[in-house]
């Protein structure tokens, strides 16, 4: 049985760098605590090389030239942890979130260690080293630098990942030999126990493993025996698997509010890429994308005004089929936010995707090729931006006798289920509707229209049919009652103009509703 462990060194820094990869080449320090007692809780390799250590105060860290100080972001760490778990679930269904516990101040400890059961994966991917390499590559794709170790039991894999950088594979039976050089501080020790071992001169795993078991147990009790098993790499325990995450969410808190759309899209692009990599690793697609923007006041406003203008701007995009393409999502988001922009600077962004398995539909051999869903969605979004949200779609007739009764619904073409059984030899005259109807003046003779003025132009009535009373909806505010006529009009030219007019009985006005065409 093999277990793999993924460990993210300096998890707080990595979570920040995942959201802001341009900082990766700089000296980055993460601070935590309440001002003015801010202390360094994590630093990247460049910062450590520059002499910054965990526990320094903010003032001490600022002494380093070119250092970038960032506040610890719990939400970004949670996003990174979810990404890590997604990545592990892409390889195995048995994944343990090893750091899932709470600290004293109810703040979650950085979930920097994930252990997964890779037993049986050799038939799919290859040797344990290949599996470890695949894991490392997949996590790197998500923007995290990790150590990966493979061993015969979860604890040995965890200690190897925490102790050795890069990829480590420990063959069965070689645990003592390979783990021997690790410091005992890597074991989960209490301060008192660590002090005792230090006093005995036990500083690494090898020294602890070499102690006689019975004598150690007599002096340190069951805890001593457990520690020795861990140091020997032979401790066996069952994994505590976690459920796969069904909510794909990315959150970014900005230090400075963003006021323009282009930089906002730049940030959203990163978040989309992260979500798409996570979706791809789980072989899922997004059917719905929700973007939330926390809006604050402008910098020149007072604190009270900024608090008053604080609001949440949310937009939702729905797709007819699950999609994975981050570029399509970005373009759709851009069009959506361009049509409905936030009313102020954005301080915090969150993006969540509703995941679903992708649809694989095999079109018929003799059917016309359908529209590509991604391209169709982009086209529809562009059309909506051009003419308006409610003016693009498919018409749906309403079950009413009200004139011109229809509503627009989203355009999701489906394969035809019913065939037209209409007689192709019979042609029906179509109408062209005037929206809104044209007001007209009508001269009548014995109640029958004889002359119609439309927008000041006179038209002679040469044929008339009607009236037909049409009323309804009297129980609602949208009641209608009118007399309808079909008229054949002629003006200067000889060609007939066939129109459908009506007289609104409530206002006694005449309107031209449509023309027969």
């Amino acid at each position, binding site marked *: 049985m093999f277990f793999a462990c993924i460990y993210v060194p300096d998890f707080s820094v990595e979570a920040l760098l995942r959201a802001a990869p341009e900082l990766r080449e700089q000296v980055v320090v993460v601070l935590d605590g309440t001002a003015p007692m801010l202390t360094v809780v994590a630093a990247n390799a460049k910062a450590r090389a520059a002499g910054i250590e965990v526990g320094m105060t903010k003032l001490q860290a600022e002494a380093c030239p070119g250092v970038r100080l960032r506040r610890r972001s719990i939400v970004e760490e949670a996003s990174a942890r979810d990404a890590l778990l997604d990545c592990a679930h892409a390889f195995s269904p048995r994944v343990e979130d090893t750091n899932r516990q709470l600290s004293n101040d109810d703040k979650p400890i950085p979930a920097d260690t994930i252990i997964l059961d890779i037993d049986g994966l050799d038939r799919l991917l290859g040797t344990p080293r290949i599996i470890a390499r695949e894991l490392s590559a997949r996590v790197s794709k998500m923007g995290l630098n990790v150590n990966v170790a493979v061993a015969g039991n979860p604890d040995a894999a965890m200690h190897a990942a925490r102790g050795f950088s890069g990829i480590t594979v420990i063959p069965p039976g070689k645990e003592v030999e390979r783990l021997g050089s690790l410091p005992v501080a890597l074991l989960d020790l209490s301060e008192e126990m660590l002090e005792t071992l230090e006093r005995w001169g036990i500083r690494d795993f090898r020294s602890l493993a070499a102690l006689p078991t019975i004598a150690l147990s007599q002096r340190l009790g069951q805890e001593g025996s457990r520690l020795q098993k861990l140091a020997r790499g032979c401790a066996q325990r069952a994994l505590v698997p976690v459920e796969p995450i069904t909510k794909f969410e990315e959150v970014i808190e900005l230090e400075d509010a963003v006021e323009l*759309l282009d930089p906002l899209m730049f940030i959203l692009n990163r978040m989309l890429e992260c979500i798409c990599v996570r979706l791809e690793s789980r072989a899922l697609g997004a059917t719905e994308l929700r973007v939330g923007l926390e809006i604050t006041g402008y910098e020149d406003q007072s604190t009270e005004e900024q608090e008053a203008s604080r609001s949440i701007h949310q937009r939702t995009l729905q797709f007819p089929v699950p999609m994975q393409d981050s570029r399509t999502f970005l373009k759709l988001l851009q069009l959506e936010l361009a*049509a409905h*922009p936030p009313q102020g600077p954005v301080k915090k962004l969150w993006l969540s995707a509703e995941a679903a398995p992708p649809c694989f539909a095999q079109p018929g051999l003799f059917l*016309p090729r*359908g*529209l590509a869903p991604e*391209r169709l969605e982009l*086209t529809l979004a562009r*059309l909506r*931006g*051009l*003419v*308006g949200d409610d003016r*693009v*779609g*498919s*018409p*749906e*007739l309403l079950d009413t006798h009200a004139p*011109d009764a*229809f509503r*627009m619904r989203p355009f*999701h*073409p*489906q394969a*035809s289920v019913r*065939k*037209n059984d*209409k007689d*192709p*030899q*019979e*042609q*029906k*005259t*179509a109408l*062209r509707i*005037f*929206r809104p109807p044209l007001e007209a003046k009508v001269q009548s003779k014995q*109640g*029958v229209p004889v002359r119609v003025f*439309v*927008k000041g*132009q006179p038209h002679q009535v040469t*044929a*008339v*049919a*009607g009236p037909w009373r049409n009323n309804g909806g009297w129980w609602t505010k949208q009641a209608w009652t009118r007399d309808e*006529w*079909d008229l*054949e*009009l002629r*003006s200067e030219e000889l*060609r*007939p*103009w*066939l*129109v459908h007019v009506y007289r609104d009985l409530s206002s006694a006005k005449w309107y031209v509703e449509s*023309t027969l*065409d």
Partner: protein
Amino acid sequence: MLTTAEFPQLDNSESKAQNPFIRRIKHENTLLIMTPATELRTRLEQALEHRIPRAFTPIQRPLPERILTGITSVDALTGGIPVGCLTEICGPSSSGRSSILHQILAEFMRRDETCALVDASDAFDPQSAASAGVELERLLWVRCKQSDDRVIGPSGEVKRHSAFGTRHSAKKSQSNSNAAKTPLFSTSPDDPISRSPDCLSQALKATDLLLQAGGFGVVVLDLGDIPIAAARRIPLTTWFRFRRAVENTSTAFIVIEQHPHAKSCATLVMDLTAQQASWSEASDQNGTVIGAHAGNPAPLFRVTAEGIAIPFEQSATSSFSMPQRWSTPHARLLNTVHVHLQVTRSRNLGHPQKFLPQSEPSSVCENRVNTKDTKCTKDIPFLM
């Protein structure tokens, strides 16, 4: 072909005269001058075959696939709607343009195609389209914003411009916030399209997007109520771009308008004219109106010129069992609208007579192959 590198370096004129290479060139030039043009072309094409195949032979464009409209008379004249080409259906108001369009949409949907309609004046009637057999759920309807420039009447002239309407629509387009800030298409004051009505500009942009996206069986641009003067301002390059976008695709592009504007970009131009409308009165030889309920062909009542309804012998359950007074217009119905169709342009009109039914004379349409401008006429009745 010989290149300068192939010429040998000559030292003096004497050696030039005796050089066998030069002599061969002179001989070949003499032969070329004496050769007829066709043979010369053949020889040159053979010489260039390895670089430019068939350099001087025009590319034979295959005949486009045609989809029948479902109207026998129209199919007899046109052979159907060409796929991958631009088709113009022109005519004034009440000339049957929308009726033919609905038939075409229904026919394409019968072939499981998805259709798109760009409605410049928001005049599409879903009810009549559905009754014509159009599956509305597979129709993408783009309703461009209102403009007061809409044509009123059959003459095709703008009767009145409303300053408020124009300003209102401009305000609306501005309020569409960032669409105005970051336009999808660059427009300048000199651009004819940007000087056109707002709805026309939107319609052209929407059509461009749909044609570029592809995948639709038919894309319809309805400019039927756009004034002729405004539609004429659409630059020819726009029509060329549209034609180029649908070329070699399985999309048919149809434009509904009052006058043809696409010129040589159109493969098929149909010109429609309303002839006459036949009302139910006209169907009776004795000057009486005979009415019937839908689905029941038996006459239920008649109306004389005096306006008295005299019911026929009906069963006691009939609603017309008692004599009743009718005013004539009540009982009158619009039966049929006759439309005159003229094909004013058709590239590679195939063999239309094969679509004609046995009862119709084939002399109505001239069968011309590879004609540039063909004029064929036909009357089409549209039932109410």
